[in-house]
């Protein structure tokens, strides 16, 4: 198939697109071609310029210079409406849907059929049904969006574009929010669309995705195209090296290590209620020994966040026990757990991990702001010490910032995560709870963070890793526990299982 593509008709082309922001050159001389009926990936790290390019294509930004050609005709999009009129459709990473409205209402919104300001719902419903059947995108046209799963909501977004007669579909990080099963279903849908003549552009930083679905890939780095590959003629390592601009290790090497015998952290028959008073964790027991990483695999929403919050003292425990170094800490406050050398890397670094407007120094100190040597005579904060201590950690953890007095919000995602790691890892924890440590980070940062977590294991720390990425679970864990509906349903030795088997239990052992 790839051989034919060169002869295929070019449907969309950009010529030397340059996009200059006040301080950043986001796109520098980008020329790409999209053929009719192909799946094209744009691969790049965060900040490589992928989203900027797509926003230029979609009429959200105006390019500083350069041209967009559609079927060899130069076009100018001043708004997404122009782009839609020319047959472009975009599915954003964060869906733009009205939750209380029905699927049909969401799809027709802005392009309602009917005369004189009335809406012909019957016709609309029929049309929506017809499109969804044609493309194999099954979804109930009368369901409200809020009642749909994330995967189905994404379908509604795709249908929205198709309803507007899109023949070029742009998907921005489409798998970021999906479960492994939903990802497979999405890929089927995308392939179906390609076969019916729709051209698809996928923006992503995930190598697996590129390899699994696309025909061709452009690799972007620092706002420039650094390579173009046919997927059939490349490898993950090749793509990763191009993307990062140096040799990267995709799966960090992990040496076998004997865990200690006495568990540092014990969870006994834990029950935690969520906000709706429904047991999110229901009878979970687990031991974590020093020098081992226990990986909790599971689909999002099976109790991961409740488990993490209960273990760190942010959510009350309904019943069961949490034991740390032989002491019952079930009812201990977060403050006292921190005092007991329990460290926590939260999954949402902006919400739970950092106080973004505060400085890097303050973010490294927070949690220890009530003890010497950070505090003198009980109330006076010693900023000289705070900042010099932070400067040492900035050096040790390779955090890229000109000054520890910069606010944390000025850092990139990877460097923000390193600030959290520096804070938690430097406190000599005995137990470390790590939740989705690499969410949204790019390959280079992932490699670094995985290395640091393994180094902590080699220092005999007991580590509980919660992650939605199976790759990560397999790369780091010494033991895999599958979490399903608030319970551990299966335990695996990562050497004696594979993604498929674990994935099967993650969805409750049902197809």
């Amino acid at each position, binding site marked *: 198939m790839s051989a034919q593509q060169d002869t295929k008709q070019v449907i969309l082309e950009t010529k030397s697109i340059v996009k200059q922001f006040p301080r950043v050159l986001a796109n520098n001389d980008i020329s790409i071609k999209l053929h009719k009926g192909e799946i094209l990936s744009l691969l790049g790290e965060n900040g490589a310029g992928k989203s900027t390019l797509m926003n230029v294509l979609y009429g959200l930004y105006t390019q500083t210079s350069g041209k967009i050609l559609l079927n060899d005709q130069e076009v100018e999009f001043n708004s997404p409406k122009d782009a839609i009129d020319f047959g472009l459709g975009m599915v954003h990473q964060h869906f733009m849907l009205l939750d209380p409205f029905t699927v049909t209402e969401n799809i027709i919104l802005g392009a309602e059929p009917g005369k004189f300001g009335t809406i012909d719902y019957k016709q609309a419903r029929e049309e929506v049904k017809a499109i969804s059947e044609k493309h194999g995108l099954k979804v109930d046209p009368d369901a409200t969006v809020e009642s749909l799963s994330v995967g189905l909501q994404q379908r509604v977004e795709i249908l929205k574009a198709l309803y507007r007669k899109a023949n070029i579909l742009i998907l921005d990080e489409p798998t970021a929010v999906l479960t492994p099963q939903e990802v497979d279903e999405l890929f089927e849908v995308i392939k179906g669309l390609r076969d019916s003549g729709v051209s698809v552009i996928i923006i992503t930083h995930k190598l697996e995705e590129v390899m699994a679905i696309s025909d061709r890939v452009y690799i972007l780095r620092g706002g420039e195209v650094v390579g173009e590959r046919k997927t059939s003629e490349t490898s993950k390592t090749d793509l990763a090296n191009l993307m990062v601009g140096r040799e990267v290790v995709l799966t960090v090497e992990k040496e076998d290590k004997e865990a200690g015998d006495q568990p540092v952290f014990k969870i006994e028959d834990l029950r935690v209620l969520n906000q709706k008073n429904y047991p999110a964790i229901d009878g979970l027991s687990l031991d974590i020994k020093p020098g081992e990483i226990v990986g909790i695999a599971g689909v999002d929403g099976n109790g991961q966040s409740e488990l993490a919050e209960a273990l760190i003292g942010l959510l009350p425990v309904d019943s069961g026990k949490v034991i740390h170094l032989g002491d019952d800490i079930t009812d201990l*406050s977060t403050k006292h757990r921190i005092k007991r050398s329990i460290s926590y890397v939260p999954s949402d670094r902006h919400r739970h991990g950092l106080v973004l407007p505060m400085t890097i120094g303050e973010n490294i100190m927070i949690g220890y702001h009530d003890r010497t040597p950070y505090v003198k005579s009980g109330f006076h904060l010693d900023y000289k010490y705070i900042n010099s201590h932070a400067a040492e950690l900035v050096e040790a953890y390779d955090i890229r910032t000109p000054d520890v007095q910069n606010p944390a919000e000025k850092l990139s995602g990877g460097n923000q995560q390193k600030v959290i790691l520096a804070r938690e890892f430097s406190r000599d924890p005995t137990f470390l709870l790590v939740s989705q440590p690499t969410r949204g980070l790019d390959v280079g940062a992932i490699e670094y963070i995985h290395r640091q977590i393994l180094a902590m294991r080699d220092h005999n720390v007991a580590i509980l890793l919660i992650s939605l990425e199976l790759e990560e679970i397999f790369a780091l864990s010494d033991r895999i526990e599958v979490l399903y509906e608030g319970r551990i349903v299966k335990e695996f030795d990562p050497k004696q299982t594979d993604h498929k088997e674990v994935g099967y239990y993650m969805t409750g052992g049902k197809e």
Partner: protein
Amino acid sequence: MDKKMLKPVVFILSILLAVIGTTLYMGTYFSGLLFILAAVAVFLVYRWLESGKTALIDLLKAGARTLMVPFFGIIIAIVIGAIVMLASNYDPIESYRALFYGAFVRNWYVSVLNAAPLMFTGLSVALAFHAGLFNIGAEGQYYIGAMAATFLGLNMNLPPVLSLVLIFILSGMLASAWNIVPAVLKVRTGAHEVITTMMLAHTARYLSPIFIRAHGGDPSTSDHAYVTDQLPETNWLPRFNSFLPDANYRLHVGILVGIVMALLVYYLLYHTRIGFEIRAVGENKDAARAQGISVGKAIMMALLFAGFLAGLAGVNQVVGLDHKLYENLSAGYGWNGISVALLAGSHPIGVIFTALLWGALDAGGQYMARVTDTSNSIVEIIKGIILFLVVAKYIYAYLGNRIRRYRRRTQEAAKEAT
């Protein structure tokens, strides 16, 4: 070695100059300004000695950038004020001359008298803002502070200094206790402090007439029926003219207490543990909680401190200026404190200046209305516009983007033309 010796000397010199300058200037000795300027110059020398030339330049640049927005806002507000005056047939030049002459020269002491209570209430609102709370009820805490100060001032017979200190602390604490109910409700049930403090503000305000009648003087000997007895002179705040003979006889040292409080609030917020916790909770209470900070405690502390500060505004008026409590329900120092805090971007040091500006505009407005035909409601218009232009900072980001886009377009056009 010389440098090491020099640094503390320079630092102390700058502090000394600042203290002398501020005292003189607030006591209407305009030579005080020279001392203040000298203090700033010496302080810059100190910074240069401590961290070198580039750091000094950065400091100056950052300072200029912070001052740009308020400066710009004030200029625009003055221009718009002039347009309003022209449209209503007043002479803007004549009016502004009177306004500024009255505010900063002729009646500077009135400006200072006005600024003192605003400084306390402004600090109160600003501190609460740092915890993410809106202490809209500062007015109520003001009245509690004023009533407590009157009661204590009338009934306490202790050596002068001790009694004044006690009046300040006890009345402040009582005003702070007035905020316990909103604080507990906020922590326990999440009841919004805007509603609860506002309601309690009205309660406190209308408690004051009852209090005044209970402690009232003889209506036949006073032209003002609704006023309490006068405090004994031992419980009055010292006045500037006791050590600066040319100062106005009404001018008391409350403003200096206000400035000291501003410095203390600054220290509390930016250099202490509890201040750090308050700011962390205000910026991101989820992250603060995850690091073991008690959100409830921080909210509690912030609202109690805020109540204390607003209460001091009332104390200041009673023991400093009036020496009795009037049934004056329209002064609105609590409400105006919100403007003062917003204008200062909630920075405690900024509050010193915005309170003085607000006080000066009021004093200037009164003077202007007396010597020209112009109504002093013009001053309220100008105050509103300044606040609008300074608080709505996004306007500048928007204008900046527009200007950059225009420049780029013209550059591109020029490029294509060549």
